[in-house]
């Protein structure tokens, strides 16, 4: 496996994971507040793009809704500026409005950082909106469908 022509073996594990970032469906938090999980507080405009106020950074993790946690987990992951995103149902806990916001943010990110994403979804409409290529997993095999 290679990233920008560099074999994965030349990266340390942590360095590789900063470049090839995985967003899991279940997100974990280990500090009391959301803000403590960021090296640098996200810009207010960035938070606003996901319908989040700056006060969310000071609030307790266990008081956050699943939707807030999911959106903040995405921002936390993007702080590393990864080249490849592995997104496991990144909008599963979101309502339609926030779902669109997250989709747009990710697509903008990919364009801006010349990155790519492998994105799993159960939502046919979402796939039509975002995907440049589409594969379907059926019976343990991967089938290319028309995008």
């Amino acid at each position: 496996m290679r990233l920008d022509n560099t074999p994965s073996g030349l990266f340390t594990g942590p360095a590789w994971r900063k470049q090839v970032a995985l967003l899991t469906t279940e997100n974990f938090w280990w500090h009391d507040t959301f803000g403590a999980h960021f090296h640098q507080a996200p810009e207010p405009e960035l938070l606003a793009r996901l319908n989040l106020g700056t006060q969310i950074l000071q609030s307790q993790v266990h008081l956050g809704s699943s939707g807030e946690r999911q959106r903040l987990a995405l921002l936390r992951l993007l702080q590393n500026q990864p080249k490849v995103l592995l997104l496991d149902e990144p909008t599963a806990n979101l309502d339609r409005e926030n779902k669109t916001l997250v989709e747009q943010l990710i697509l903008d990110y990919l364009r801006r950082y010349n990155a790519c994403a492998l994105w799993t979804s159960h939502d046919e409409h979402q796939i039509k909106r975002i995907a440049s290529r589409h594969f379907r997993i059926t019976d343990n095999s991967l089938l290319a469908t028309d995008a």
Partner: protein
Amino acid sequence: MNLILLTPFDLALTASLIVLLALITYFSKLGITATLVIAAARTVIQLMLIGLVLKALFANAQLIWIAVMSLFMVMVAGYEITARQKHRFTGLWSYSIGISTMFISSFSITIIALAVIIQPDPWYQPQYAIPLLGMMLGNTMNGVSLAVDRLTTSIAQNRGVIEAQLILGYSSQTAISSLLRDSIRTGMIPIINAMAAAGVVSLPGMMTGQILSGTAPMEAVKYQILIMFLITASTGFSTVLAARLTARRLFDERHRMRLDRLRTLK
């Protein structure tokens, strides 16, 4: 002052206290009666045996026999450490970590204490060497087994959080640093408490023994201070080392968590 000799009847009388305790735990269904009785029986048998061994060893004080005895003690302590773990490494890793850390710390500190500080003649005189090593190993073993058990348990319990940090590109050292700190503290707290309470709450066992056998209190105190410091150093070094080795074994060179290297007892 002469030592008052204990008769078998004296010991039988004390044993009746254990029997009483066993009965109470049995009828209260505490589920600890068998463990209690077996441990009490082990105390009698093991101490009787060691009494015989020491008698023979003292009569025949050659370095080779003392070395054999010491190595045996280190091995048993290593086994005990492993036996107290809820999560153990597959293969011989748990034994190796326990035995090697005690060898590096307890064993070498005992030798330094004998050869440089106490200086009996010869330096390996078993009346000094064996009890000293025994006290070191007993305490060190407790510290190491507490720390390692705490570390493996907390890493297994916090698997999700640790993996989330690894996913974000944290190194394994960073991801478990607070758990490692906690586990080392857990291992060292008993001996630190023992130092803090020494003389005020409890008279340490060795000092009590020396006083009972007629040593002047200040002489017994000096020995106890020496022993306390040696034990603390031995426990501390071993605990730090064992916890670090354990942490290292739980991750591989790609900083992946390797809980598959543990097997869990129910």
